[in-house]
Structures are given as C-alpha cells and as structure tokens.
C-alpha cells in the first residue's frame, strides 16, 4: 500500500527525513513511532504529496507520489496533525464542502456518506452549531469523519488520539480495528507507545529522520526464551536449575528456558512452591527506547548527538542488556 525507497527530505541543512524505506502492506495496522521532531509529520506529508522529497521514491496505492498523487489520494482518508475546519460553518457543511472540492465524491451519495461517517465517529447527533463551538474532542472526531467520508482504502492518520479523553481513544481504536477488519489499511503516526501497542500489527520507529526499526508487533514482543519465576524457595530452585538461572533478585529468578509449562511442572514436581511464572516478553517501550536516542526537542547531553543506529530487527538471541518482563518488574535490576 505504501512503499518508500531511500526517501530523504532536507530543509536547508537540516535532514528531516533520511533514507527511509517504509513498507506498509495491505491490511496492516501500521504504527509509526518516534519522539517529537523525529520527522514523522514530514514523512506523512510527503506520502500525501504536500511536501516534496529531496530524493527517493514514494509509491502509495500503486501510484507514484507526487506525480500521480491525484490518482491515489481520492482513495485515502487523511488526518494531518490537528484537524481543521472552517469555524463559522457547521460540521456537516464542512464535510459537504470538502467532499465537493475534489474528485471521487459523488454528489448523489454525499448526504448518506456524510451521515454514515458522522455516525461512525460518534457525532451522528450534532446540530447546526458552527465548528468554533466544538470541543477539542469533537473537532478530532469531525476530522476523522472527514477522512472516512469517501470510504477510503487507506487511512493515513497523524496523531489520531490527540485531544480525546480515554473513552474517546478507546472508541477510535475500536473504530479503526473494525474498519481494518473490513479491509481498510491503517497507517498512523504517534508518540504514544501504549496507543500503538494496543492498536497496531506492525511498527516502524523513526529517530532523527531515520527508520531505525520496522517489524511486526508480534515479532517484537515474541518470547525472549526466558521465564520469570517467583518463588519463596529460591535457593532450592537455584540448585535445581543450576546454570540456567541468569539472574536472581530475592524471590525473583530469570531462567533461560523456552518452555514455561515444562519448567513449572519440573519445579512443582521437585516441591518448589511457585508463586508466579511467566514467559518473558519485551515491551514495546523497551524496544523503542533501545533503538532511539534522545528526542530532538532535547539539546545538549549525550543521546541526541550520537550517530543514529542503522535499521535492525532485535531478535531474542541478542537481547538488550536488561530485559524485564511484563508485569514482573525486577527491583534494582
């Protein structure tokens, strides 16, 4: 759906996006993560033909961007940074105007499509109030409705959760998952890890304009081959699993073993009382913090000035120095 090759954008001497090779496949829910100023918005704008690349190629829905953007864009619904609308007009009037402004929006079906989009985002009941009277959350929903009016095949959403309360974020997440299961590919950028890990199936991480990671979420969060065990009988377990325990911290053990069920049976069989046992998985946060430096809104210090690391896919065989398990924080590790 979206492919970029060696995509680079320079603003003067600043390299905002550097040699990015994005790949979004049909049916993905792709989350583009990155600290503030990492180039997410510039990348999204290039995909939509708003900003012209310095070098590199972009293909969206099989069309070259920006040359044939006019053929691809009618099938794309976009939310670019904040939503925008004419403040003195009502939400419906805004959607009508935007739909009438470009190709691919039949006048005959316009009313029905607008009502459907408004209903989907939870604004079916809005009255004739002008948009300037809307709350931030309502504007965000209206922006999403505008993206949905033409029933797009691809959604490109820049920070879709902005301005929404937890309820609204959940609504939008459910909506995106529902649309995705109906065949819509979703590409969103965010700096909220929790949002991306709850919604996306594939993740790309942008840091200082470089794509430092691009992998499916399942692959990133697959078991590390270690098991986290909590037991009062840590000494006995240590003796029993001699050589397999990588670290011990009080009752908490990190055991190198790919099979938690087998390990559990063995420990219990030997009379070790197991309080909890779980496969160790890396969190998205760990993965992202490992591959990114300091955000570019930080100046001075170390991380920001170090050369960005090349694209790589962290694998369980080369774990980060201190992997921690979900829900099994090891104090002082």
């Amino acid at each position, binding site marked *: 759906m979206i492919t970029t090759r060696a995509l680079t954008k320079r*603003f003067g001497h600043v390299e905002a996006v550097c040699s990015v090779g994005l790949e979004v496949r049909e049916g993905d829910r792709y989350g583009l993560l990155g600290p503030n100023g990492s180039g997410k918005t*510039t990348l999204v*704008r290039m995909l*939509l*033909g*708003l*900003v*012209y690349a310095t070098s590199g190629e972009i293909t969206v829905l099989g069309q070259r961007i920006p040359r044939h*953007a*006019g053929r691809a*864009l*009618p099938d*794309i619904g*976009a939310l*670019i*940074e*904040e*939503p*925008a*609308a*004419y*403040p*003195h*007009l009502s939400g419906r*009037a805004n959607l009508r*105007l*935007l739909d*009438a*402004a*470009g*190709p691919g929006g039949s006048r005959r079906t316009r009313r029905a499509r607008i009502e459907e989009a408004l209903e989907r985002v939870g604004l079916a009941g809005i009255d004739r109030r002008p948009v300037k009277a809307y709350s931030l959350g309502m504007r965000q929903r209206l922006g999403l409705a*505008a993206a949905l009016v033409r029933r797009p095949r691809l959604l490109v959403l820049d920070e879709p959760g902005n301005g929404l309360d937890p309820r609204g974020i959940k609504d939008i997440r459910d909506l995106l998952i529902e649309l995705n299961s109906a065949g819509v590919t979703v590409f969103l950028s965010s700096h909220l890890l929790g949002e991306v890990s709850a919604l996306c199936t594939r993740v790309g991480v942008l840091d200082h304009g470089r794509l430092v990671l691009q992998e499916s979420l399942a692959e990133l969060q697959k078991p590390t081959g270690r098991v986290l065990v909590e037991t009062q009988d840590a000494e006995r377990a240590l003796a029993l699993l001699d050589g397999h325990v990588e670290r011990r911290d009080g009752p908490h053990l990190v055991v190198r073993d790919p099979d938690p069920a087998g390990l559990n049976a063995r420990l219990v069989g030997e009379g070790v009382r197991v309080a909890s046992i779980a496969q160790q998985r890396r969190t998205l946060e760990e993965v992202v913090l490992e591959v990114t430096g300091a955000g570019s809104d930080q100046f001075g210090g170390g991380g920001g000035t170090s050369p960005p690391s090349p694209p790589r896919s962290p694998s369980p065989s080369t774990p980060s120095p201190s992997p921690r398990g979900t829900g099994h924080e090891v104090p002082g590790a």
Partner: protein
Amino acid sequence: MIGVELFKLFRRPRTWITAGLICALPLIVAIFVATTHLVPPPGQGSAFLSAVLQDGQLYPAAALALVLPVFLPVAVAIVAGDSIAGEATGGTLRYLLARPVGRTRLLVAKLIAVIAFVLFAIVAVTLTSYATGVLILGPSRAAAVGESPGSGISGSIAPGAGGAPTAGLSAGGAVTSLSGAPLTVLQLAERVIGTVAFITVSMLGVAAIALFLSTVTDSAIGAAMGALATLVGSEVLVTLNAAAVVQPYLPTRYWLAWIDFFRQPILWRDIDRGFGIQAVYVVVFLGAAWANFATKDITA
C-alpha cells in the same frame, strides 16, 4: 471547486461586512452633500462629485470614484491576501490539497472567487449609490440649480468646463458626456459596462499581487499589507514629478482612466494603457504565484 470557493466567499460574514462598508462611504458622502450642497469645484477633488447635485442619477460614477482609490483596493487586497494564506493558517489548506484539489486548480478557483468579489462589490456600489443618488440627491436638480445661480455651485452647470470630470443632464433628459455631447441610453450602458470592466481589471492587478504574496507567506494579514504597501508606494510615486520615468509602469497610474469612458468620443489612450499595464501585472504576478505555489512544501 469553483462553486465551493464561491460558497465559502459568500457564506463568510466578512464578505458582506466589507461590501456594506464600501457601500456606506458613498452614502455618508451623499448625505453630507445633500445637506450642505458643498462640493469641490469641477476639476478638483473627487471626480463627478460636482455633477451629482444636478442629477442624482450620476451618483454611481461619483461613488465609484470615491471608493476606487482606497476602499476597494483595501478590500480586494484583504480578500486576495487571505485566499491561500488564510487556508494555510486555518489548517484547511493541507486537507484541500490532500482531498485532492490540484494546486493550479485551487489557485484558479481562488482567483475566480476574488473576481466574483470585485464584481459583487462594484455592482453593489453602483446599485446602492444609484438608489442613494435618486433618493437623497434627487433625480434632477438642474432646474433648481439654475434658479439659484449664486449658490456657489454654478460652475458645475457648464458641462466639461476646463476638461474637468463633470457631467450634467440636458433639457431633453439624456445624460451628457463630460465633453458636452449627449449620450444615448445604449451608449451609456456600453460605457458603464466598460467602466465596470476597467475597474475589475484594475482590481485584478491588486488581486494578483496579493495572491502572489498569499502563496509566499502563511500570514493573511502580511500578504494583504504587502499588496497595500505596493499600492501606497505606487500612489506616492504617481504624484511625484521626479519619478516621471517610472510612472507609466506603476500599477495605480491609470486607475482613474475609466473617467474617459464618459467623454464623447471616448478617449481611448489612457484606457488602453491602463488595460495593458494591468494585464502585465496580472500575468507576471499570477505566473509567479503559480510557480511558487505549485512547487512549495506545504508545512502549515
């Protein structure tokens, strides 16, 4: 897209307020003139003003001459300066372009909306000032003026005195040209259309400059002020004898040449030059606007 732009233009309260203000100025002037009967002598002050006391039906011409130097250009500069920069500031520009609306297409639609605004404003001024003229100044005061020759406005009775822009109503009821010869209704209609066309083209020159600046900056007020600064600069140079070398090329040099439409025969020299110089400004600045906008990174 053109329909969308026209809808946006005429649904904006600003459009109506601006047009209202433009129409209000001639109304205020008419009230003062009607109550005091004091007008500038022919050849001085605003064109046609000395003639309207004899015939209120001429007031539209005087009204256009009143609003053209300042009011109308300010309004046009604001509307045209806002056209792209305003969308950029509001954030709607990126959604329009991602909709997608081609950049050239958007620029053309904006230009047509500005032309529509200019025509709307001119027609509104013409109609309201005609009504004002007839209702406040009266349909024909030639007789009344003639009865009181000592009233200080007798100079305006002689049409075309000193080549000054003044016109009057002949005894037969036909409108006379500035040169004194009577005009038929058909001739008058032709000349009014010619006037509207000339003023529209003059305002298009302003619009082209403002539209170009509007694609350069994301600040609507900056674009409007830039265009107005150009016009004020031009007006200053037009009155400066030392700048005679560049005067034929200044955008405001021939702005009032439409007065020549009301001479018999029409004095084409300045009108032609006015059309010519405005065409050059329009082509150059619209070309620059297009070249800039079509290649610009939209980061707003």
